[in-house]
């Protein structure tokens, strides 16, 4: 399920693995991996999709620096919650690349990281339903008092 | 857990999750006392590894491992001996 701050929301984005699926998906919201984007950028941009891009925590933003306008969503997939690179990547997207659309966290993330995620520019997280309460609890415990701007 | 173990007999040990104290698997239970610890033969390691995993999942213990015993049935490694007997010098107080 997708949690955006304190609201659960629908996820229109469907993940697709290969280009063959593109045809059936006409005019839909699709989520593609960075690898697929790099391999099939031309083909993908021929269709009118709502595009979401999934970037794993060990990938860099370099390849998409100039493509950002294509994406309605950028999703950082945490390989493990211990790998903090996506925090920096999200911040960079917002600060250096001025990306205004949705940034989402997925993969192995903990509710304990929710406030950090939001503060680094994430809008939403993909979570397991059974953990919803815990995610909300962290939001509730946060008093908005931080040392950093 | 059972990889690269030396010897024929072992104790199963862990720390109690809630207190942190060193415990040994002793006849259906965990105990900080070594006297009733189950002496596990090499053939049965898998069974006890399963027990350890289950008890980890049940949040009873943490960091389980097998303590190697030498031919005389004594704990082999210095580390495990200190872990069992406690620190080797008198405390300040």
């Amino acid at each position, binding site marked *: 399920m997708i949690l955006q701050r304190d609201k659960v929301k629908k996820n229109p984005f469907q993940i697709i693995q290969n280009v063959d699926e593109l045809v059936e998906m006409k005019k839909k919201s699709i989520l593609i991996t960075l690898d697929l984007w790099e391999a099939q950028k031309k083909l993908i941009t021929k269709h009118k999709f709502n595009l979401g891009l999934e970037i794993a925590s060990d990938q860099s933003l370099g390849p998409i620096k100039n493509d950002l306008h294509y994406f309605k969503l950028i999703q950082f997939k945490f390989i493990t919650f211990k790998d903090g690179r996506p925090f920096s990547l999200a911040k960079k997207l917002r*600060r250096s690349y001025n990306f205004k659309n949705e940034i989402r966290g997925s993969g192995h993330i903990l509710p304990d990281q929710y406030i*950090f995620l939001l503060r680094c520019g994430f809008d939403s997280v993909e979570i397991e339903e059974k953990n919803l309460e815990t995610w909300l609890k962290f939001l509730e415990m946060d008093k908005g008092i931080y040392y950093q701007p | 857990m059972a990889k690269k173990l030396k010897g024929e007999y072992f104790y199963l040990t862990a*720390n109690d999750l809630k*207190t942190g104290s060193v415990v040994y698997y002793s006849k259906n239970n965990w105990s900080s006392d070594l006297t009733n610890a189950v002496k596990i033969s090499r053939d049965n390691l898998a069974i006890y590894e399963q027990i350890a995993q289950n008890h980890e999942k*049940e949040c009873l213990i943490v960091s389980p491992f097998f303590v190697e015993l030498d031919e005389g049935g004594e704990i082999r490694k210095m580390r495990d001996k200190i872990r069992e007997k406690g620190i080797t*010098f008198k405390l300040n*107080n």
Partner: protein
Amino acid sequence: MYKYTEQDKKIVKNRTKEFKFQVERRINGDLTEEEFKPLRLMNGLYLQLHAYMLRVAIPYGELSDIQLNKLAEIADKYDKGYGHFTTRQNIQFNWPKLLDVPDILSELAEVEMHAIQTSGNCIRNVSCDHLAGINSEEVEDPRPWCEIIRKWSTFHPEFSFLPRKFKIAVTGSEKDRAAIKVHDIGLKIVKKLGTIGFEVFVGGGQGRSPYVAKKINDFLEKKDLLNYLEAILSVYNELGRRDNIYKARIKILVNELGQEKIKELVDEKFEELSDKSLELNQNEINNIFNFFKLPIEKKTNSKVPIHSDKEYNHWLQQNVINHKIRGHSIVVISLKPPGKPPGDATSSQMRELSKISKDFSYGEIRVTHEQNLILPHILNSNLYELWSRLKKLGLSTPNFGLITDTICCPGLDYCALATARSIPISQKISNHFKEYSVQEKIGDLKIKISGCINACGHHHVGNIGILGLDKNGEESYQITLGGSATEKASIGQIVGPSFSTENLIPAIERILKTYEENKKKNEDFLSAFNRLGIDKFKEDLYK
């Protein structure tokens, strides 16, 4: 001394609540150990050989009498009546129960203390010169800067899940007492053309691959400090290795890329990311500095009491340092009495010291990275009475800076990672060389002992470093010579094959003999070693 603001209070209190919630989730199985471990570490909680261990932060090594008294209380109520002061100016409790830790944290919060970021792969508690603000050769007091960095680094949303731990140290003097060159970032306050700023060093560290830090900035303006730190951390978070825990520290990155390249990357990031809102303005800086005003009002002609007691005179000579304000002294309380575990203090000692600091030192106590304590502001005329009271507590050992003033990690007696014991080695040394006259004759000498290659006992930078190894189940000790953690930092060289526990003291004796036989007048061990070279020592030691 720094006092919590409302903001600090709320943040620390909130953290206490959060940790309680995390412990609950661990106990009921919502968090696996794999998930809980980094979270508990970020709050200073380890699982050691025998039990949990809680490391409480003493930011830049400064404690009030009230805080020290609370530490004593915690030691009695939740632990075994003692605490251990560490090489990064923190204190460790060795026996807390997981279920008690939230309560301990609440009690600590009452006296403006916490365990935040004393471990884990985040920016650790910042350390500092223990003579900050009270020595006369200082450019500027580093403590306010430590406090500024403490705030910035606490719960930093971007830098709380780094490839590995990250340690920062600050000094305000030419003479480095904070070991800044063996930190991930070392900051040295300097003055250039009348303006104060920082020299910045990165990539120092000990452990498996020791490095002395490299300078990447000659003069960083004060206002840019936080932006520049962000730039370094940002480069590290992006490029630091995560595939191999032994190669994950920034020192490896700095060494792989080289000094020039790392400087270039940091400068680029600094350009790219510099954020106006992180710029420090003079008002903010002044606000923090105001907390650190000296409690002493004015110079006096207060005289040091004269007594014939030999021990008192040894102590005066060895453990008492001039304060920058005339008529006052700085007193080092050695936590290395003969035969005791270095850095340990009992609850009754802490409680008494708390009172003593209130009676004589404006309620201020400091912790040094060499695991001693300091009473920073003593009126000279009080020295004899102070000494008498310390003596009753067993805290008047006159060995500051001498051979028995060892740095020592917990080693195999406590530590789950150790390969050999270290405390018993330190005890042997302090018993063997316990006579003051013997130590005085040897002169300044730093012995540092680690129980494994992780080097928490700083053996790489000991004049004599001792590293405990496991040789087929037997403890064995490797000796390095010539290390130093000062402004002339250097990594010690391995002298040769390691020694059994029995042969270690004779080996040290032999090394000292080489020094004794070859030293020039007034030449200390390190200088003599640097002049003579390792081969001379090796030759004598293994002949």
